[in-house]
């Protein structure tokens, strides 16, 4: 007993000693390079690219993850694609980004869960010499974001607003039209952008009196749905129907920021036995495309995740080569600390009439439009 113990303790001691001598101090190697994030020298062709995405609650994030994994592999990079855990999203994502930094990722692509709570982690990434690309959601309150790549979300909002007006006009040629407004999660920077875009179109009509918000809830705080949760939208719609539309007042249209919420809203309206109003959407989710073809949801937005991922990978490739990636907006996206250079892709509005054309390239969705 004693001998085996002694052997063990000697082994442990030896291991400790080895660890002490074998690992050198980190201070020498990186301390000179970490502050010079400005010089674009590029990095090895098979460098590690980290991709941190929110939890797997929407089809689009799952698809994006798969596309990143395959796309980065094809481009010759090593990749580490992570989703945040379902319950501890923010803390999980923080830990994942830190782990990517530790593993020596050269570029970290982040689809943020809470865009305002990552500044410590992206700062660490920068200090370690990694580039940070904010994917789809702009990371705020930090100077340590290099690029922002997304669909033009203000335009998405404008298109949703316009589609809402067009749809209602098609059903009932003259106003005034009664509508309700929904917006996305308040902790998602994009939610406000969508809403502002939509209001950019709707505001003149509301001011003129052509469009009336039945409940009077026009402020983004009143319309927000925490966490983009379907049940949140459904319960808000339920209570609107039970209060404002209890009397026989007709609801002509609902501005919904995305498809998940749009379907929840339609479910609520159906449940109340009311005619389905014009409901907008976004993301081209399978169920919503079916709903549009069935004549329930009015519109969605096609933000082709394939294109967005492809452009992101193009950006990563230029960073690898040491060249400046292409951007098309260097003014609009101020995150509270700096103006982040952005590359914006144009969205496409899809209704029943344009569905076949819009999804022609998408094998899964085009089948639904036939």
């Amino acid at each position, binding site marked *: 007993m004693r001998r085996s113990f002694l052997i063990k303790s000697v082994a442990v001691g030896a291991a400790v000693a080895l660890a002490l001598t074998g690992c050198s101090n980190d201070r020498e190697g990186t301390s000179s390079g970490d502050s010079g994030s400005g010089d674009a020298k590029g990095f090895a062709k098979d460098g590690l690219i980290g991709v941190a995405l929110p939890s797997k609650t929407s089809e689009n994030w799952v698809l994006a993850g798969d596309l990143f994994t395959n796309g980065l592999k094809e481009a010759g990079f090593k990749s580490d694609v992570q*989703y945040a855990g379902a319950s501890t999203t923010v803390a999980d994502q923080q830990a994942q980004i830190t782990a990517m930094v530790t593993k020596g990722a050269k570029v970290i692509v982040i689809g943020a869960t809470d865009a305002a709570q990552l500044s410590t982690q992206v700062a660490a990434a920068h200090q370690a010499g990694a580039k940070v690309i904010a994917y789809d959601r702009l990371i705020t309150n930090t100077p340590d974001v290099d690029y922002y790549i997304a669909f033009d979300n203000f335009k998405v909002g404008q298109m949703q607003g316009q589609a809402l007006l067009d749809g209602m006009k098609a059903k009932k040629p003259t106003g005034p039209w009664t509508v309700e407004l929904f917006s996305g999660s308040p902790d998602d920077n994009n939610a406000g952008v969508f809403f502002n875009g939509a209001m950019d179109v709707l505001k003149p009509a509301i001011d003129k009196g052509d469009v009336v918000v039945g409940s009077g809830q026009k402020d983004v705080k009143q319309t927000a749905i925490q966490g983009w949760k379907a049940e949140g939208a459904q319960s808000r719609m339920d209570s609107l129907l039970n209060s404002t539309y209890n009397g026989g007042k007709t609801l002509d249209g609902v501005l919904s920021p995305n498809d998940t919420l749009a379907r929840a809203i339609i479910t609520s309206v159906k449940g109340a036995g009311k005619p389905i109003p014009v409901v907008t959407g976004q993301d081209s989710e399978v169920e919503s495309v079916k709903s549009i073809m069935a004549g329930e949801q009015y519109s969605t937005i096609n933000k082709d995740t394939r294109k967005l991922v492809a452009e992101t990978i193009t950006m990563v490739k230029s960073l690898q080569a040491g060249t400046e990636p292409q951007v098309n907006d260097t003014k609009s996206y101020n995150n509270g600390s700096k103006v982040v250079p952005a590359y914006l892709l144009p969205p496409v509005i899809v209704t029943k009439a344009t569905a076949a054309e819009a999804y022609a390239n998408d094998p899964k969705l085009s089948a639904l439009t036939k």
Partner: protein
Amino acid sequence: MSRMKELQKNLFGGTTSNARQFGMIFTLVAIIVFFQIQTGGLTLQSGNLIALTQQYAYISVLSIGMLMVIVAGHIDLSVGSVAAFVGIVVAKAVTEHDLPWPLGILLGLVVGALIGAWQGFWVAYVGIPAFIVTLAGMLLFRGGNQYIGNADTVPVPEGFRDIGAGYLPEVGPSTGYNNLTLLLGLLACAAVVWRELRARQVRTQMEGAEPAPLWIAVLRMVVMIAVIVFVTLRFAGGRVGTSFPISGIILAVLVLAYSFYTRNTAGGRHIYAVGGNARAAELSGVKLRRVNFFVMMNMSILAALAGMIFVARSAASGPQDGLSWELDAIAAVFIGGAAVSGGLGTIGGSIVGGLVMAVLNNGLQLTGTGSDMVQIIKGLFLLGAVALDVYNKKQGRFSIIGSLTRSNRSRHEAAAGESVEANVVKQPAARS
């Protein structure tokens, strides 16, 4: 007694309760070695150790309070919500109402104390089970967070961020290391030696108790000093600008203070007495209500602190702060050897339990395991760690969490003796 048993008994402090943590420490070392190999050396890299400390400091702060709550025979499900609530209150106060951040921290602790007093009142003086009170608190303060914050993310100023994301500053001559961290390490080594000498001294004062054999004392010192030196050099040798995190220092201070309180003061003894046998404690003159009030209130103050550390690290208070923290803290406490029925467990054990989960989580992330698999593995690990321990104890072998089964066993024995009465409703009248 065999040498191995003697070692188990003496290596980590010299008491039986500490010996029970021995196995868990072994598990921790095994996990570290496993991931160190799996990740090609990333696990023990300076940057990773520093990140680990920051990521789990707030959970460990919670588990200190949770240990005391669980030892007293309660549970607190509200810690995450309380943390989030305090976080948003403090963030709003310092950002929107221009309260200087040190006062903001004080405000947070006061709010935590008030919430704790509220929960403690219901548990201790009204007699509602803590499970119910804190379930209500979980809803109450989560709602409070959203009400005050409008579900917004509110940033906090630079100075405040230091308690979650700050490091010891660089001072003194250039040694290639962070000098303050080196100093801390030196202090820790000195403390280990002093403690060892003092323990031997105390032990010799105990007539009839033989001090641990010298070879064990020396071995223990050598191992601990080696670990401290290694860890110190790692923390001190990180990227310039990083060193031992402030949140780690806060945690270390709390661990030392609360370990001392629970082990070496009458107040700490009373918590164990209440959890072990409330009626016996009461008849020995322990003021039950006061103890229960204290543990619940203390928990909320620590939850407030944890919330602020997280907000500081995240640079902002958000609506998702604190989600399922209570589960992490409770898991850490149980892996660390506390008994579900109360009365057993140590602060040190809970910290080790938390570290095991932290290293596991971190290692899985470094190896690129998805968060879905991470959750599955952590869940199985929690169950497995406790189950293996229970099994070992049944086989009469050394038990990782001997405490847990020890309480079960004594209750079994009691139950066996009264198996007939078990299906009989007790009359309210006391018998004489």
